[in-house]
């Protein structure tokens, strides 16, 4: 359409009349050509997201409002969701929506006002996933103190992997590590990370997984702030430790993980025990073991020693002395008794003979009677002696059984120093190289001491 060149003069019979469509078309071209693209700031409201992916909303401020249209292809590039109440900066092309005769802005780019687009997206996603309960404290699981196998989700070429390998080599080197390699930044990295995680948790014996990457910008770390990674972590059957970025970086992966570490090295330290510290603990336990065993045995040795001391009073060496003395005394008394008795008998026989002689009866009868008497006496004495002998034999037998000699017969030996005859009882009584005499049951053995070891009753 060509715009009217001249205004219609009042009163003229010639008018240029446009249709609504033509007018709107013309106005639209006018607007589009003269304004082009502008940045506009305002607050969103009346948001309507169509099924086809186009977004329609009102941008307003205190002075007015204007309808906006964000078409699908441009909307797709937004990292965050459009909501009502957002303060935005829009790069837009004013136009006229002919069908409704409305002024509208065709939005090409969107920036959040005040904070970055990624930050906004982060907040939106965090709110949404938190509402689902994916970050709940109650879901956090404890880590195994001695993991059997550690899964690693990280880039194979990165420093993060080297750090983990180094730290684990210091803490507990024999724990096997299993790397599930993945990109850790760039488009689509989030899907790789999620897949790598799902793969490694299925492997046998993996009972903890470290998801780590080194420091970087928010854009670099962005894949750890996405839904696929969060869901993969939350859905893991084994505990996850996340160590993404620097100390101050907090990612949604960190919120979803069972434990968060400030760095990849710290993640390895959380997952593994420190063997040096445990070594000290083991030494302490070993010391206690030795002390306890020594204590037990020392207590018992003491009791045994007391018992042995009591026994020594009854022991063969002391008994030998005592028994020897008793035996000698008994024997002397016994022979004395026998002697005296014989003496008494002799005396009586003599006196009887003397009396008989003094009475001088018929010598034949006397001699016969004397002979008979003598015979009776002899047999009496003989019987008496036999009896005594029998008694002596019995006594001797009884003494023998008590005698130290019988003790020797049971295998005990008595050792005495050759020089002094002092009975040897301990290492203080004899030295290596000295001579001693050993009395065994049926022999005296001359011997020389080769070595003298005290008998220590506290070992068994």
């Amino acid at each position, binding site marked *: 359409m060509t715009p009217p060149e001249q205004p219609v003069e009042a009163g003229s019979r010639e008018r240029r009349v446009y249709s609504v469509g033509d007018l709107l078309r013309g106005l639209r071209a006018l607007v589009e050509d003269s304004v082009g693209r502008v940045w506009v700031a305002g607050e969103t409201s009346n948001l309507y997201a169509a099924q086809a992916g186009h977004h329609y909303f009102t941008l307003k401020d205190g002075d007015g409002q204007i309808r906006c249209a964000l078409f699908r292809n441009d909307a797709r590039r937004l990292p965050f969701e459009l909501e009502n109440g957002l303060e935005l900066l829009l790069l837009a092309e004013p136009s006229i929506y002919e069908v409704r005769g409305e002024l509208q802005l065709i939005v090409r780019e969107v920036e959040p006002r005040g904070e970055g687009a990624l930050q906004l997206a982060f907040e939106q996603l965090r709110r949404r996933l938190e509402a689902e309960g994916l970050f709940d404290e109650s879901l956090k699981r404890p880590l195994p*103190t*001695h993991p059997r196998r550690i899964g690693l989700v990280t880039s*194979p*070429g990165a420093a993060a*992997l*080297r750090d983990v*390998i*180094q730290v684990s*080599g210091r803490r507990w*080197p*024999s724990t*096997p*590590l*299993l*790397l*599930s*390699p993945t990109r850790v930044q760039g488009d689509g990295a989030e899907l790789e990370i999620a897949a*790598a995680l799902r*793969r*490694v948790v299925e*492997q046998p014996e993996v009972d903890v997984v470290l998801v780590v990457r080194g420091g970087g910008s928010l854009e670099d770390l962005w894949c750890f702030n996405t839904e696929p990674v969060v869901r993969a972590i939350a859905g893991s059957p084994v505990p996850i430790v996340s160590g993404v970025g620097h100390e101050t970086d907090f990612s949604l992966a960190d919120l979803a993980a069972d434990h968060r570490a400030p760095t990849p090295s710290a993640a390895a330290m959380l997952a593994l025990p420190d*063997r040096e510290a*445990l*070594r000290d*603990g*083991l030494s302490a*336990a*070993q010391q*206690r*073991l030795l002390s*306890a*065993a020594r*204590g*037990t*045995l020392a*207590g*018992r040795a003491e009791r045994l020693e007391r018992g042995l001391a009591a026994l020594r009073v009854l022991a063969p060496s002391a008994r030998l002395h005592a028994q020897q003395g008793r035996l000698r005394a008994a024997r002397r008394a016994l022979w004395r008794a026998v002697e005296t008795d014989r003496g008494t008998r002799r005396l009586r026989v003599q006196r009887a003979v003397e009396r008989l002689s003094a009475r001088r009866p018929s010598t034949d009868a006397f001699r016969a009677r004397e002979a008979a008497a003598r015979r009776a006496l002899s047999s009496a004495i003989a019987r008496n002696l036999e009896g005594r002998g029998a008694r002596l034999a019995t006594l001797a037998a009884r003494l023998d059984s008590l005698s130290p000699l019988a003790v020797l017969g049971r295998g005990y030996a008595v050792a005495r120093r050759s020089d002094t005859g002092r009975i040897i009882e301990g290492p203080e009584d004899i030295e290596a190289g000295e001579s001693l005499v050993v009395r065994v049951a049926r022999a005296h053995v001359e011997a020389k001491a080769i070595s003298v070891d005290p008998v220590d009753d506290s070992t*068994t």
Partner: protein
Amino acid sequence: MAARKAKSADSGAPDTSALPFEEAIEQLEHVVDQLEDGALDLEASLVAFERGVALSRRCSEQLDAAERRIEVLVEAGGETLVRPLQGEGDPD
């Protein structure tokens, strides 16, 4: 695994040579507690002490084990395989 669970002659307790560190140190603590309590008779004390020594040796073994095993998952022909990790990522 059944073959490794040989019983020691005296105590009838299971073999210590395959115990993981955590269990071995726990059992060692238990043995030490028993001995310190002094409630065991002499025979049992000595058996307990011997077991304590075996457990302590097992713990040391585990602490000193330095052999590393670092592997990587590799996708090949639709399957997931485990391979030793070469080169990169092995300092010390």
